[in-house]
C-alpha cells in the first residue's frame, strides 16, 4: 500500500503496515531532509507532486516488486509540501519471512520511487531557491 501525504510521515505506521506473525524480517528506509547540498546550507525543501499519477506510479512499483518477491509485503509514503531539515520525506517498509527478501524489496522500492515518481523538490539554500535536477538525468545529460 502507498500514499502521498501532506502531513508528517510515520515510520511506525509503515512498519505496522507490513508486520505480521509470519514476518521475521522488516527492512525500512527513511529519506530525511539534509542540512547541506553541494556545499550549500539547506533551509528547507518544498516537494511538489503530480499527486494522482504519483499515487498510481507508487502503487504499481510496490505491486510489481511484491509480484517478483511473493513473500514480501511493502508499504511506502512520500511527503509533499514544505519540509525542514531532519524531517522525513519518504519512508519504505518491507516485511518478509526472512531478511534477504525484505532488504532486497526495500532497496528496489526506494530506487524505483526516486527514479519514477512524478515528484519534484525545490531547495531553499543561502544561494536562493531552485528545482533540484535528479542525478540520473544529470549523468545522462553529461554522458
Amino acid at each position, binding site marked *: 500500500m502507498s500514499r502521498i501525504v501532506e502531513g508528517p510521515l510515520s515510520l511506525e505506521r509503515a512498519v505496522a503496515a507490513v508486520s505480521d506473525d509470519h514476518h521475521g524480517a522488516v527492512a525500512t528506509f527513511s529519506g530525511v531532509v539534509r542540512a547541506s547540498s553541494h556545499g550549500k546550507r539547506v533551509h528547507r525543501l518544498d516537494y511538489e507532486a503530480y499527486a494522482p499519477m504519483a499515487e498510481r506510479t507508487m502503487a504499481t512499483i510496490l505491486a510489481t516488486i511484491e509480484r517478483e518477491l511473493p513473500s514480501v509485503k511493502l508499504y511506502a509514503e*512520500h511527503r509533499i509540501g514544505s519540509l525542514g531539515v531532519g524531517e522525513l520525506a519518504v519512508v519504505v517498509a518491507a516485511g518478509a519471512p526472512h531478511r534477504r527478501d525484505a532488504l532486497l524489496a526495500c532497496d528496489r522500492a526506494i530506487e524505483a520511487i526516486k527514479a519514477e515518481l512524478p515528484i519534484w523538490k525545490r531547495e531553499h539554500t543561502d544561494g536562493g531557491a531552485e528545482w533540484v535536477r535528479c542525478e540520473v538525468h544529470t549523468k545522462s545529460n553529461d554522458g
Partner: protein
Amino acid sequence: MTCTVLLFAAARDRAGSDSLTVELPSGATASELVSACVAAAPGLSSLAPSLRVAMDQALVGHDALVRDGAELALLPPVSGG
C-alpha cells in the same frame, strides 16, 4: 483538437502558469505537443529537451499519438525522495 496540458515544478515556473491550452491537429505526437507548448510559452524552450509527456497519468514516448480528451502533463526530470 484543443488540449489542456498540466505543468509541474520548473515547467510551471518557466511558463508562469500551471496549465496551457494548445491547439493540435488530430494525429499529432507527444513531441509535437511539447513544441506547441514551447510556442505558447517560450520560457519552456530551454527545458524542452528534458520534458517528458504523461498521457492519462502514464509516461509516453515522443512518438505516441495524443488522444483527444486525454489528461496531458509535461514533467521535468523528477527529483523525489
